[in-house]
């Protein structure tokens, strides 16, 4: 390996007391302060993302409790534990919580925490926008769960098909709650997407050209683009069309006045199908670093994996009609979607083959994160295969809207989304908190979770094909569906136990003092170059990157770029393709405007359910917030172009 700093004397290092002084200055400048005001106004991406992750995990538990109640009701035929009204609120809230309040937010939150660290940046591109997205998410959580307790939880499914969710057949405001929860979560997702795209393109460490970005970051980038194209569709459907239909008598979906009930399904599923890939692709991005670390091997096929992610994202937008195969859409049109739905298995297959090849030429160490990767392969491949089966129009006409689909979707979401996520939690827990989770408890968690998922959901394939439709609060004894339902309920108890073990593990770990070093696993990403947990300024100096695995490819300390100011929050902006230093910007300090604006959004959208006057009122309040936000933004004198030092190595 050649010495990349041939232009510099080889023994140039920075004196320790210089480091000490600089880190103290930086931590002061990047600090939030203390007290309630600091808590409300922080724009530190790590703080905000950690809050998002914890809240999303609480939503996972809430959704799990709803699922447990449903499974308790379905464990016996004609059970009287929960009546039809409560049950429909439960399955709707379960789906809405898991899809909108847990899955997407936690995946984007992992990105919002790690993307700056992995690309060597001090902060996200738009820290206040990030905080704004977080507070919108909080409004959504509070709104949905308060409504659950006042009997106003939505009750027409997480997909809210009209005309059932329309004004005539869903009286009251339950469905309006759903429509606005979707609005807030979609604002939140869009802000996260914008941040990830701009941070990834413009704030990478010098030398980290696009083909050196970690695969985790690639996955987040691809998903961010998907969010930008998919979320507006659900905003159109729920906020624009359904909410106005219900509030001010629009006729979007009223066939008697020229509307169309199928229009809802098209617009919703145009979002709904990419939505599941928005959940799935970040999880795939988490697998590569885990495999690399515990097989101690650079991943086989970096470029094919990146291309597979991009291809999956494109294909994902061409599949939505496979949710509508039972509707009277012409069969030729449906067949196009069959083809796309089958072919999307190919890029995912490419990724799995590359991972198996990585594992093959190495000696995998079976730590808990690695175990979850194995659990992913075991579980997700099953779900992927049933997905390809459902692509067949003929077969889907039997399986659509039955427990077969419930089985498929949970296999892919739990196996393909949650298992990698749990592995990622165990892997990155030291980086978040400075403590390592217990391996023993982790293994118990893993085995109970994998066994629980398979025991709960495998019988549902059979139940579905035996005639059991979805979204039923009970079933008759002569159908013979009782025994398998009981098995599924027992599996659900197992899953619940495993999640409890994880909570115990986390709580016990947090009781210890932080004792993990910067890189307890010996991994290769830039995030492992800083302390655990990272200081509030992330990196003392901007790292200079010469390969895809910075910590594995340098025999000496990481090369860095110095000369940044430590009396203000300074971030480095680099060029898009080659990451050559371009300019320096001042990052914003803590601000109350994100919270204020999110509350304005709350007033605007929640108020619009009760009276249209809240819309102009909310807009007026928001304009005030936007003025405040813009007023306290960065000043013109805070951007400076940077001349590329001769010592920074060009892209090799």
């Amino acid at each position: 390996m050649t010495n990349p700093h041939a232009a510099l004397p080889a023994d140039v290092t920075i004196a320790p007391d210089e480091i000490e002084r600089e880190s103290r200055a930086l931590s002061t400048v990047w600090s939030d302060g203390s007290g309630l005001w600091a808590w409300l106004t922080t724009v530190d991406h790590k703080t905000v993302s950690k809050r998002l992750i914890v809240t999303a995990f609480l939503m996972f538990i809430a959704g799990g409790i709803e699922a447990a109640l449903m499974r308790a009701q379905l464990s016996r035929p004609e059970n009287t534990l929960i009546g039809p009204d409560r049950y429909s609120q439960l399955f709707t809230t379960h789906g809405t919580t898991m899809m909108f309040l847990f899955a997407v937010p936690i995946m984007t939150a992992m990105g919002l925490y790690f993307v700056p660290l992995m690309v060597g940046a001090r902060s996200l591109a738009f820290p206040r926008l990030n905080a704004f997205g977080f507070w919108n998410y909080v409004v959504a959580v509070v709104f949905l769960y308060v409504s659950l307790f006042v009997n106003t939880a939505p009750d027409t499914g997480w997909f809210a098909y009209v005309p059932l969710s329309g004004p005539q057949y869903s009286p009251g405001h339950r469905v309006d709650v759903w429509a606005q929860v979707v609005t807030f979560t979609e604002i939140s997702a869009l802000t996260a997407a914008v941040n990830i795209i701009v941070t990834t393109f413009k704030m990478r460490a010098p030398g980290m050209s696009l083909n050196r970005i970690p695969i985790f970051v690639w996955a987040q980038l691809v998903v961010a683009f998907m969010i930008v194209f998919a979320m507006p569709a659900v905003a159109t459907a729920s906020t624009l069309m359904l909410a106005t239909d219900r509030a001010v008598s629009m006729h979007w979906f009223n066939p008697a006045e020229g509307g169309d009930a199928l229009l809802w399904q098209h617009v919703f599923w145009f979002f709904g199908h990419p939505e599941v890939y928005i959940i799935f692709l970040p999880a795939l991005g988490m697998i590569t670093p885990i495999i690399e670390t515990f097989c101690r091997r650079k991943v086989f096929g970096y470029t094919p994996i990146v291309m597979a992610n991009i291809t999956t994202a494109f294909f994902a937008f061409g599949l939505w009609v496979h949710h509508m195969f039972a509707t009277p859409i012409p069969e030729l049109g449906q067949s196009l979607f069959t083809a796309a739905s089958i072919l999307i298995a190919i890029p995912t297959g490419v990724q799995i083959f590359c991972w198996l090849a990585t594992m093959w030429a190495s000696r995998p160490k079976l730590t808990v994160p690695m175990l979850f990767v194995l659990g992913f392969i075991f579980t997700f491949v099953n779900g992927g295969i049933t997905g390809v089966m459902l692509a067949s129009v003929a077969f889907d006409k039997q399986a659509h809207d039955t427990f077969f689909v419930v089985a498929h979707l949970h296999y892919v979401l739990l196996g393909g989304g949650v298992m990698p996520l749990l592995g990622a939690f165990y892997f990155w827990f030291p980086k978040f908190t400075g403590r390592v989770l217990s391996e023993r408890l982790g293994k118990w968690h893993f085995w109970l979770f994998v066994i629980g998922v398979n025991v709960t959901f495998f019988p549902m394939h059979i139940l579905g094909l035996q005639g059991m439709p979805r979204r039923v609060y009970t079933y008759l004894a002569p159908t013979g569906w009782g025994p398998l339902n009981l098995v599924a309920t027992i599996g659900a108890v197992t899953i619940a136990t495993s999640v409890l073990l994880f909570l115990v593990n986390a709580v016990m770990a947090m009781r210890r003092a932080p004792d993990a070093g910067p890189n307890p696993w010996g991994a290769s990403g830039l995030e492992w170059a800083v302390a655990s947990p990272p200081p509030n300024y992330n990196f003392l100096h901007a790292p200079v990157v010469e390969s895809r695995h910075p910590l594995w490819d340098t025999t000496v300390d990481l090369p860095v770029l110095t000369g940044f100011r430590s009396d203000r929050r300074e971030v480095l902006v680099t060029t898009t393709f080659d990451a050559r230093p371009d300019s320096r910007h001042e990052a914003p300090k803590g601000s109350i405007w994100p919270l204020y604006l999110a509350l304005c959004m709350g007033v605007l959208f929640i108020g619009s359910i009760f009276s249209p006057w809240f819309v102009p009122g909310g807009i007026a309040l928001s304009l005030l917030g936007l003025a405040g936000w813009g007023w306290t933004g960065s000043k013109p004198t805070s951007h400076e172009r940077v001349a590329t030092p001769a010592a920074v190595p060009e892209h090799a």
Partner: protein
Amino acid sequence: MRLRLAMIFAFALVVASACEREERRLNQPSPPAPVQFVAQVPLQPGPNVITDSTEGPFDDNAFGTAQGQQLFSQMNCAGCHSHGGGGMGPALMDDQWIYGSTPAQIFASIAEGRANGMPSWKYRLTNEQIWQLVAYVRSLSGLTPKGARPTRSDEMNVKPAPSQTPNAKPKRSGPNPGND
């Protein structure tokens, strides 16, 4: 600590006011009919006004009002009353009430029937169904709480939805306003 207490209190308050509007009263005993005597007009001898002030049990309940809307269409009330505009029968969405606009008076009109063609539904519909119709009829002219009124129906809409009708105060019936 005080902040926590305040939050718990606020939460309890919200839960306690848990929406009457959203209740779905399934498999509940039917609300009783009003007492025997329901004055149809406010003209009475003497100062004592005998009226039934029974509240409409479904007036603030969105589900019950929607059921009333469904019954209105199923029992072909529109055949005489159109969708509130009247035809052979009087209009129901204006503020002229021949026999009174209180819930008990409308209940009596539906249950007993009225002269000049209003059939008697007492033995045809249950009390609960008649109360649901009462709630719907009152919503047509804006007499019930706005949040519980139905919005547009999935049919050709010949009039604005009741939820977009302005709120109305109950007006007395008859040509000579008295001390009601």
